[in-house]
């Protein structure tokens, strides 16, 4: 009997370390291990294999439920916003987030997918007027993705006015979707967060409706600060979805569980590499498998 208990306890310890090592965070892991202990007792689980399977199943059901509720919440918000303003003149995807996490590359991947799979007429907008060669970077991507791009005028430094001009062009020239790439910023920088609030207001006034998606881009290697960042972004700019990038690396992005469950932000897309084809829809099963590997 002692041997069996040891095996189960050993499995629990290993699982705890795997989950902590995957950035789920000590609060989430404590709760998962507590529930797992209860399952082990109730279902009289005897082996490490059974313990791991039980945890995988609970974690999957927790995440899929949280993802569904998050998607419902975002959908309801958009419907009520459109009820107030009417539906926007064209679809707008706004990409926001921390410096270097993959906004520009994800904007390009989304543009490519919308053109090739959904046959949409897409306009990319290079609204990062700050970073060295940011416009050149997106312009090269636009060329590779076969989509048009709106770039700042010479000396046009105001991101909101770049977006404004692009949206005028989008409605005049009948684009289906406008994808706006913005400059990276830390959620702790109040001036830059205010600039983003203003950008969103200018965009929504111009299309006379809510943006279709305000996508927060966070990369997989991020630790617990990603949850703090997401919370601040939600508060300041009301993000409607997460783009989780660099999942082709070794990081498992356990912070996603908290972002979906505690903050109600659904994962919309996953980045799995640096080329235009490396964009996937979020697959909770594959994600959980990756966590527990």
């Amino acid at each position: 009997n002692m041997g069996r208990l040891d095996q189960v306890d050993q499995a629990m310890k290993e699982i705890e370390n795997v989950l902590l090592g995957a950035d789920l965070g000590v609060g989430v892991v404590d709760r998962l291990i507590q529930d797992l202990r209860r399952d082990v007792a109730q279902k009289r689980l005897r082996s490490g294999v059974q313990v791991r399977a039980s945890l995988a199943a609970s974690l999957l059901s927790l995440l899929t439920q949280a993802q569904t509720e998050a998607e419902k919440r975002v959908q309801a918000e958009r419907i009520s916003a459109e009820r107030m303003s009417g539906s926007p003149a064209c679809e707008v995807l706004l990409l926001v987030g921390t410096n270097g996490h993959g906004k520009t590359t994800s904007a390009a991947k989304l543009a490519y997918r919308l053109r090739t799979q959904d046959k949409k007429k897409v306009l990319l907008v290079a609204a990062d007027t700050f970073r060295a060669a940011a416009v050149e970077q997106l312009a090269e991507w636009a060329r590779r993705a076969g989509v048009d791009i709106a770039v700042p005028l010479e000396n046009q430094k105001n991101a909101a006015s770049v977006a404004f001009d692009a949206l005028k062009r989008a409605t005049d020239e009948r684009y289906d979707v406008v994808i706006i790439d913005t400059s990276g910023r830390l959620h702790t920088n109040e001036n830059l967060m205010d600039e983003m609030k203003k950008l969103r207001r200018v965009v929504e006034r111009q299309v006379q409706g809510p943006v279709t998606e305000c996508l927060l881009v966070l990369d997989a290697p991020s630790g617990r600060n990603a949850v703090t960042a997401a919370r601040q972004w939600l508060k300041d700019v009301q993000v409607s979805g997460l783009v989780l990038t660099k999942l082709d690396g070794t990081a498992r992005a356990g912070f996603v569980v908290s972002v979906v469950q505690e903050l109600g932000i659904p994962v919309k897309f996953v980045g799995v590499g640096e080329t235009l084809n490396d964009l996937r829809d979020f697959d909770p099963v594959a994600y959980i498998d990756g966590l527990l590997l």
Partner: protein
Amino acid sequence: SLTENLQRTFSTLRGLDKITEANIEPTLIEVRRALLEADVNVQVVDNLLASIREQALNMKVVQGVTPGQQFIKAVYDELVRLLGGDPEASSSQPEVSKAPVFAEVTTKPMVILMAGLQGAGKTTATAKLARLLQTDKRGRKRVLLVAADVQRPAAVEQLITLGKQINTEVFALNAEKSGPVTALEVASKALDYAKQKGFDFMVVDTAGRQVIDEPLMQELAMIKKAVSPAETLLVVDAMIGQEAANITRAFHENIGITGAILTKMDGDTRGGAALSIKQVSGAPIKFIGVGEKLDKLEKFYPDRMASRILG
């Protein structure tokens, strides 16, 4: 904060004159939680706790100091030591702040190789470093920047633009003129150029890469072999979580790092990665990035980092 939590946990030990296995356990659990929430790698945390437990049990209670205060100081001191510092020497002492970050090198140019994951801040750090190196107190030094990221769209343009901002020459090969170019070619030709023109320093920017990308990790090893850098710096986003330990190990085993730069420290991430980097590689964190502008690079101080991790 952890300090406040520890004060509270330890206030229950006020009447005690000895710290025992039993009464220290809840406190150690508290410290473990705090360090994990600060993104210190779980294995690094458990090693640290084993050492703290031993120190705490051997701690003699000092007159006029509560066991709680003593314990907090022990944790803080251990963090400072693990970050490569001396708990007795604070960053406000001139001999600490004035100590040179790079060892003197006799061969010219002194080569610094930058490496790291995608988006960590390498290109920005490369230019920030050049700005520091060329305004050396002992007279203007000549720095050559090398645009060896031939993969990311407009990476070369990005470094050229930054170079212009600080009046620093950038070595780049034009793919349109000379046909497809490899990073290794750029780095090797840059070294020949730097030697020929008598540059004091050469800082090589490379493309971001994942540690499980075998061909790219091999490419990095070849670049290192070709330019024989005096310093190989791992550039890491301070927002990184548990993976800091694994990627540091992988880069260190592949090319051997001599130091690290922790970027985006102007945010509110606790930066526990600093501990993982130092523990896994033995290499010290040399600088922190504290903003996007090129003057936003500061020397790394273990005592300041320890306070930040402890919260």
